[in-house]
């Protein structure tokens, strides 16, 4: 081996923040190579993917609209991941939040917005928490792996949504399309800037990140979460209740994912359909890692991955590329990020000097 890894002995602060930047740079280079392999002009493709979505008047506001659900879910996941609670079923919790809130919006379309919107937010949170409570209960009571249970529930949630929008909740005037009626105007979260789609949820997402930051760095619970993740034995000796932290991680993650689902269907989507999410729940996992499992970092991670969605749409329109390109780049970004993260704990060294050498 020409290069070897040598333990640093402690975490490198520099590489904690430099690693995402290096990973982004490597992803862009790889993307250029892939574009070239697909027979496109790499530079022009990169421009379409990364720059063109932001050049139009609605570009920047749209970026925040797309980032809002990613940030909301990512903040919740980053707290759980720190404690080694692997909730990867955020997509299902998002769906349940959308179903709970959507059900309310369809039942009381005439209710005043001042009551309806907060009630929908609460029900969205409740929906996500309900779905996350299942893996939490199964993990704490029966020792069942939350990775597999939360993921299985994502499929169940999607089937439940399809059942509702093709069955009991289908819009009778919808020409048989699998969708509910459009939500009433009082069930639509207020738009903050005229002429854009920036809704209340964007502000809530930023608030969630700030609150998450305070909880993580300034509260006993945040301290316990960090200890449980970094030194599980120490957490046990200190008497931290692991069960409570598992519940807490899943409730926060599920609640925020449910809230994201509520804002997305009430705002940009405006009704329940089978395709209310382009995989936000899974992309938020990348957002959490890119944001260094730190709520403020998650804001940046959310904006970057929101750009990948916009870029994917632009590439579809301008370059005729399938939408799947977005998923590939998201996967590659996470690959590079995980590889670069080795530099946080290890440094690269050249070949070992020969024995007896100076």
């Amino acid at each position, binding site marked *: 081996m020409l290069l070897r890894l040598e333990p640093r002995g402690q975490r490198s602060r520099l590489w904690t923040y430099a690693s995402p930047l290096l990973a982004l740079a490597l992803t862009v280079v790889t993307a250029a190579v892939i574009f070239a392999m697909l027979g496109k002009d790499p530079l022009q493709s990169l421009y379409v993917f990364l720059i063109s979505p932001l050049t139009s008047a609605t570009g920047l506001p749209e970026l925040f609209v797309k980032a809002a659900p990613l940030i909301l879910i990512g903040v919740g996941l980053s707290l759980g991941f720190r404690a080694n609670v692997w909730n990867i079923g955020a997509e299902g919790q998002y769906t349940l939040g959308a179903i709970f809130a959507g059900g309310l919006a369809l039942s009381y379309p005439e209710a005043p917005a001042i009551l309806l919107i907060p009630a929908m937010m609460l029900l969205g949170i409740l929906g996500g928490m309900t779905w996350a409570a299942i893996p939490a209960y199964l993990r704490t009571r029966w*020792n*069942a792996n939350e990775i*597999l*249970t939360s993921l*299985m529930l994502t*499929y169940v949630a999607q*089937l439940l949504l399809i059942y509702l929008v093709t069955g009991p909740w289908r819009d009778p005037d919808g020409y048989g399309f699998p969708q509910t009626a459009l939500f009433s105007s009082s069930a639509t979260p207020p738009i903050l800037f005229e002429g854009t789609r920036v809704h209340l949820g964007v502000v809530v997402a930023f608030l969630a990140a700030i609150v998450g930051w305070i909880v993580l760095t300034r509260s006993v619970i945040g301290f316990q979460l960090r200890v449980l993740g970094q030194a599980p034995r120490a957490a046990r000796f200190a008497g931290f209740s692991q069960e409570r932290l598992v519940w807490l991680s899943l409730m926060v993650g599920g609640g925020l994912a449910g809230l994201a689902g509520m804002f997305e269907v009430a705002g940009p989507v405006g009704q329940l359909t089978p395709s209310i999410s382009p995989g936000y729940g899974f992309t938020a996992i990348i957002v959490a890692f890119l944001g260094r499992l730190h709520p403020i970092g998650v804001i940046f991670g959310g904006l970057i991955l929101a750009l990948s969605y916009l870029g994917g749409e632009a590439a579809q329109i301008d370059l005729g590329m399938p939408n799947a390109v977005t998923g590939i780049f998201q*996967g590659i970004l*996470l690959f590079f990020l995980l590889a670069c993260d080795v530099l946080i704990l290890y440094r690269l060294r050249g070949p070992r000097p020969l024995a007896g050498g100076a």
Partner: protein
Amino acid sequence: MDQAIIISFVLSVMTASTPLLLAATGELVTEKSGVLNLGVEGMMLVGAIVGFATTVHTGSALLGVLAALLAGAAMALIFAILTLTFLANQVATGLALTIFGTGLSALVGASYVGTAVEGLPKVLFGHDALVYLSLIAVFAVAWFLRRSHRGLVLRAVGDSHDAAHAIGYPVVLIRYLATLFGGAMCGLAGAYMSLAYATSWAENMTAGRGWIALALVVFATWRPIWLLVGAYLFGGIMYGSLAIQAAGAISLFGYPLVVPSQLVSALPYVATIAVLVAISRDRAKIRMNAPACLGRSFHAAG
């Protein structure tokens, strides 16, 4: 019941079980070496589309199966480089592999939607060779892990990588090989989906089977023979849920019972959770059988 119906039922269950059994057998070997690869779903999807595309272009299902095997192994190689050489977190890397594989298969597969292939040739009792290969593989793996020297070494690496390293076994190399084997088997499982089960390609066609295979490894508490039981149980559930949907309604004591098809489709996923809980609640049994170093990175000191 008519004899012909029973035979057709058994044949259908075997068809539904085979991809689960192939993927779970591969993942079991990977996990026994101490590596937790959650990218099964992604590796299966890439195997499915590569096998399908190769068969369409060459006209040879055999070449398609071989290509799928290599594609699965190539995906596993990405995982192995990241987790075994760059010591990345195995859970996160496995998720990345699934996200990447889902996107890659959808991109490559876009132009193959709607194409049909003849599928794998039947060799015996109306089944193709992969069905029998899956059965041979599970017994071969059982023998390998229990009776062979190399199998013992692989288990030692999975149970205590430090001790295995101290004795002089190449921990990282053994884990690379076990991970590649797991990927190749997932590629085969994917090829079975696109070349035998469906004989066509559809985006996300594995529909969570990779994750069910991961759950099966826990269900079997890392014992290969129990994988056979689990895979056929789940194959039965999957076939049953399809059969109920095809029938439209089932009758219970003579009364027709209308069940929404989506709720029937949810059955395998709910059953996976139920089975996982039933096994996992016995903590001692899990601890006895799970590889002690599962999911932990190894870095040789000095």
